[in-house]
């Protein structure tokens, strides 16, 4: 999560003093490729080959079971709720932190990062402790017939927690680096707060925003540990795609498990592609400034 702005200014360094001998160069490249191959490419390839091992027909059939379709729908639903909520929060937090000085600012910034430091399992657990049958307000919820845990609301909340920092974290440094002058200019030209935000601030941070959103989305759709704790694993009802994969795998239905996994892998590949696209875009933008 190095951020958009850090990966710029690739200086050309082809001077002779900075040149390593060819054997050093190629052995280091070899070591790197072997390491990345072993840990990144081989697993990714395995997902697709295992998924297709028993033929295209079996592969495609894996997506057509009612449980699989329900899992896909639930995963999309969770992302559709969680990503916009965290997007709104990210915008609000970035505006307050990047545009204003106030006491406690660095504390707030640290607190926003908190969910990254929490194990996914614990992220789920805390909601069980709050809303579960034996939780702090669980009994009250039961009296009123409200079921949050082992139901969709719990899954949404756990997902909100684990994806909480993504947008804010990407936006804050981007907004800070642009300074306030353009906003001030808009104000002196008679724009109100909303106009300033929509017409000046937002277009300026759009790449950072997009970046945060796709990372947030990837995590929201792929979260396993936290969702696993709060879901209750009811087939067709509270299983997201990662949970569905787990069930298939534990039933030794490997082909189907890897087929569904390959769909999530495609999502990951699209995320990576968009990510490098955005980095290239924002690098170009910064270069032009």
């Amino acid at each position, binding site marked *: 999560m190095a951020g958009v702005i850090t990966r710029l200014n690739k200086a050309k360094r082809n001077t002779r003093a900075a040149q390593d001998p060819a054997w050093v160069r190629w052995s280091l490249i070899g070591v790197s490729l072997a390491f990345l191959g072993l840990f990144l490419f081989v697993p990714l390839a395995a997902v697709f080959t295992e998924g297709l091992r028993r033929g295209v027909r079996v592969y495609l059939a894996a997506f057509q079971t009612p449980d699989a379709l329900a899992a896909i729908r639930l995963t999309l639903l969770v992302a559709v709720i969680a990503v916009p909520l965290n997007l709104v929060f990210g915008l609000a937090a970035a505006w307050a932190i990047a545009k204003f000085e106030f006491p406690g600012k660095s504390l707030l910034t640290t607190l926003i990062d908190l969910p990254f430091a929490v194990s996914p399992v614990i992220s789920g657990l805390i909601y069980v402790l709050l809303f579960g049958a034996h939780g702090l307000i669980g009994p009250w919820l039961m009296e009123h017939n409200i079921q949050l845990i082992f139901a969709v609301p719990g899954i949404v909340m756990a997902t909100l927690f684990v994806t909480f920092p993504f947008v804010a974290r990407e936006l804050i440094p981007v907004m800070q680096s642009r300074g306030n002058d353009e906003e001030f200019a808009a104000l002196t030209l008679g724009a109100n707060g909303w106009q300033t935000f929509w017409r000046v601030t937002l*277009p300026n941070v759009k790449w950072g925003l997009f970046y945060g959103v796709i990372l947030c989305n990837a995590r929201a759709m792929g979260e396993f540990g936290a969702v696993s704790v709060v879901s209750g694993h009811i087939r067709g009802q509270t299983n997201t795609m990662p949970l569905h994969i787990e069930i298939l795998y534990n039933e030794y239905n490997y082909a189907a498990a890897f087929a569904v996994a390959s769909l999530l892998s495609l999502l990951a590949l699209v995320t990576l592609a968009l990510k490098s696209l955005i980095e290239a875009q924002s690098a170009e933008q910064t270069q032009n400034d």
Partner: protein
Amino acid sequence: MIEAQNITKRFGEFKALNNVSLSVKSGELLALLGPSGSGKTTLLRIIAGLEFPDRGAGRVLFNGEDVTYNPAASRQVGFAFQHYALFRHMTVFENVAFGLRVRPAATRPLETEIRRRVIELLSLVQLDNMDKRFPTQLSGGQRQRVALARALAVQPKVLLLDEPFGALDAKVRKELRRWLRQLHKEIHITSIFVTHDQDEALEVASRVVVMNKGAIEQIGTPEEVYDRPANPFVYNFLGSVNLFHGRVHGGQVHLGNTSLPAPEHPEAQDAPAMIYVRPHEIHVANQSNGQQSLPALIRDVNPAGPLVHIELERLDDGAKFAVELTREQSRNVQLTPGSQVFVELKNLRVFSEDYSI
């Protein structure tokens, strides 16, 4: 008419402005001149509504109306930022049109009217046919002119410019100065600009406000502040100057063996004094001119450029000072390094020593 009354502004412990009052006449082109940290930019931003005075410490009036705590958006000021603050994602056209487009529907001009006004403004700032470019495709001088056109598009009551030429290279800066003065002659809009460059202030402004350490040192026309500086700070800040230490007694200032008239200090009784003289207001001769001449040694002569720069050293106390002669004047004197000459201070200002800068 724009007035700032008794404005005080602190940033934490630092007092950026200390009880500053200023009134700007309609149609004038005023310069706020001072070193960095003098509070000039803070004052400009308070007038713009981008900064607010300390609670209860001062008022800002636009034509008599108190706007001290009004938001910037409602003040109708045009503000040109030091680094232009052009909207990078908009074309030149859209930048200039911005102030018109964000108006409420009731007062927003029609699209054709917006187009007409923007094209007219771009022509005024000599950027015809640049409307489709993006800010990144323009030079620094062009960007500054777009920023000006954008500020003018909202028909502001006052145009505020923060170091308008600060980020430009020397040649463009000179051109743009002349252009700004010309533009002001054409449209006569009340304008205030901040600068730390005395040449810029003296050349462009109709009135100059010299600021230092959060206070105003002097207000006057460029001639006034240059020829009759109110205090040593202004003397020092506006152009190069020589400082001699002497004594003042009964309307006469004594400098080594010479004595010169100092009519502004008739009551002084043998008080220590600082004597300021500009390098071009010193006459150099090979022969003594009696009482008023000071003997000095030529240390160095640099005849490059339109003026001849001479470095001298007083014979009596060894203090060094500088003289500038036109080439014309220098022809009448023998200027050999190491030789002795006599200098006469033509236009000196005497301040008693207790005045600290």
